């Protein structure tokens, strides 16, 4: 990647963040969304959708496309924003988030929203679905990758580790789990809620996964980790991305009251200014 290409991806991340805060503002206090968790994955989604993933807006269901499962489905304003920027959604559709008769449900709905590969929102389920998709790729001799974005708190769910075992058993080299390790969950810090989730990296290694640890907001790091993951020829890959919940908006960063809250107009204007969006 040239510095210019990296810079382009960073600008995409800015656009994603801009749309996240806009959605979390316009959705209003009655339907408040989850801005903090969405902002922490903006850079990862920019790299995936604008660099790494083989997808085609004109053929959203093509069989050999790469797949993405947003297992931490509450971060969907980030996913919806990137799908809008890729052309899967219109501006009007983006505004229908959490609204009656809209196509953007409170959590991702694979049936109702183009570009969404798997329903999500009940934590702990995405990796197991990703295992199924990866096995299908292997059976059909296709080389697509399946990306699953997990929260670190979400890894308290037992099903994550059941799936990690199965992925390892079947050597699913096309499966990439990206853990958005922002250190927070709904009620508290992950380390307070479940200190024994650490040592986290070692857990994945002991499940026989290929593990890459990165700064989840460093675009060069993200791009090179995704490249390594795609080319790994034996095992599933876990990219453990150290991130900041609420990244890009000073008053949200590491303030967990922004786990689920609507922005006021004043906060929205401040957020847009800080993110750098027009």
């Amino acid at each position, binding site marked *: 990647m040239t510095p210019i290409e990296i810079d382009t991806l960073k600008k995409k991340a800015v656009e994603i963040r801009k749309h996240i805060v806009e959605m979390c503002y316009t959705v209003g206090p009655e339907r408040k969304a989850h801005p903090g968790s969405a902002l922490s994955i903006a850079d990862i989604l920019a790299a995936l959708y604008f660099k790494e993933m083989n997808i085609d807006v004109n053929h959203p269901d093509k069989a050999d496309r790469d797949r993405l499962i947003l297992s931490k489905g509450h971060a969907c304003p980030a996913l919806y924003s990137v799908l809008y920027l890729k052309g899967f959604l219109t501006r009007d559709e983006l505004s229908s988030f959490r609204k009656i008769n809209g196509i953007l449900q409170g959590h991702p709905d694979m049936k109702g929203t183009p570009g969404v590969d798997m329903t999500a929102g*009940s934590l702990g389920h995405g990796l197991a679905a990703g295992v199924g998709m990866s096995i299908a790729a292997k059976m059909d001799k296709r080389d697509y990758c399946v990306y699953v974005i997990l929260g670190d708190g979400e890894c308290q769910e037992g099903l994550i580790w059941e799936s990690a075992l199965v992925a390892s058993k079947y050597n699913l080299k096309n499966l990439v789990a990206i853990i958005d390790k922002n250190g927070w969950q709904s009620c508290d810090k992950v380390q307070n809620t479940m200190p024994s989730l650490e040592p986290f990296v070692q857990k994945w290694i002991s499940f026989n996964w290929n593990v890459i640890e990165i700064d989840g907001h460093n675009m060069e790091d993200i791009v090179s980790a995704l490249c390594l993951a795609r080319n790994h020829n034996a095992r599933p890959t876990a990219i453990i991305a150290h991130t900041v919940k609420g990244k890009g908006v000073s008053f949200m960063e590491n303030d967990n009251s922004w786990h689920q809250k609507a922005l006021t107009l004043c906060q929205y204007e401040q957020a847009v200014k800080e993110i750098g969006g027009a």
Partner: protein
Amino acid sequence: MSAKMRSTREAAGEAILELAREGADVVAISADTSKSMYIDLLTGEYPERSFDTGIAEQSMMMMAAGLASTGKIAFVASYSVFTSMRCCEQIRTFIAYPGLNVKIIAGIGGLSAGIEGVTHIATEDLGIMRCIANMAVIAPSDYYSTKIAVRAAAKYCGPVYIRVGRDPSEDLFDEKYQFEIGKPVLHKSGKDVTILACGLVLAEVFKAERILESEGIDAGVIEVHSIKPLKNTEIILNEVLKTKRVVTVEEHNVIGGLGSVVSELICGKGYIQFEKLGLNDCFAQSGTPYELLCRYNLDAASIIKTIKNII
């Protein structure tokens, strides 16, 4: 009527293998249940189509969702208690909600698991599955009807739950058995009472009908293999409105299963005497399937006694 003894779980395993042989894009996932659910039959010929998550049913169900999302017909095979309860959320949110082609073979259902005790006896599964939107819920009653039900499920667009049994049971039908998901089967029209049943207990209903006939009571028998969807309801209504007496028979809690389906259907249709045979909102206990059928008034003698009480 032949007297061959084969289990319905074996029939399901054979049907999946036949589908693979015919070129259907099927896969099967078990959770340390490949032998007990006869998925080994598929594994033997098509190892690339068979997967085992180990003792991890939720993982099995979600893998099936992932596989089905790519266009495959994904069978899962485990026991009714686990598929319907441990995997209830996986089925509801990730399979039924998006309408994925996952076909659940739910083994050792109803009282067929009897000897294992309550942990393994599923008497809530039909009701739990029935109240999930998009789910088709089927309880076939012998080897042949199971085989054809599994084949129909593979062709059906959307998720299907098929309850099968454990022990070899008598064949009630043969290759000519006609099956359509949703369509009840009128085995015999009756004048005095209409018996509606699903699953393996249909064998007891047939026995009861024959004895009643010899005693001059004309009982009609309708097999409601599809708890949901229920189509062609005129087949049921015509009989019931004629006899004005109904008995439902199921290896299930009387709440939520076939008895509820039929009562919902005939509610408001006039005065009809109605008896629901099943578990009266209680848990079962360890015993052979036949001991339990007798204990919970589901054997032929109990069915006859119930009918004589309302005639």
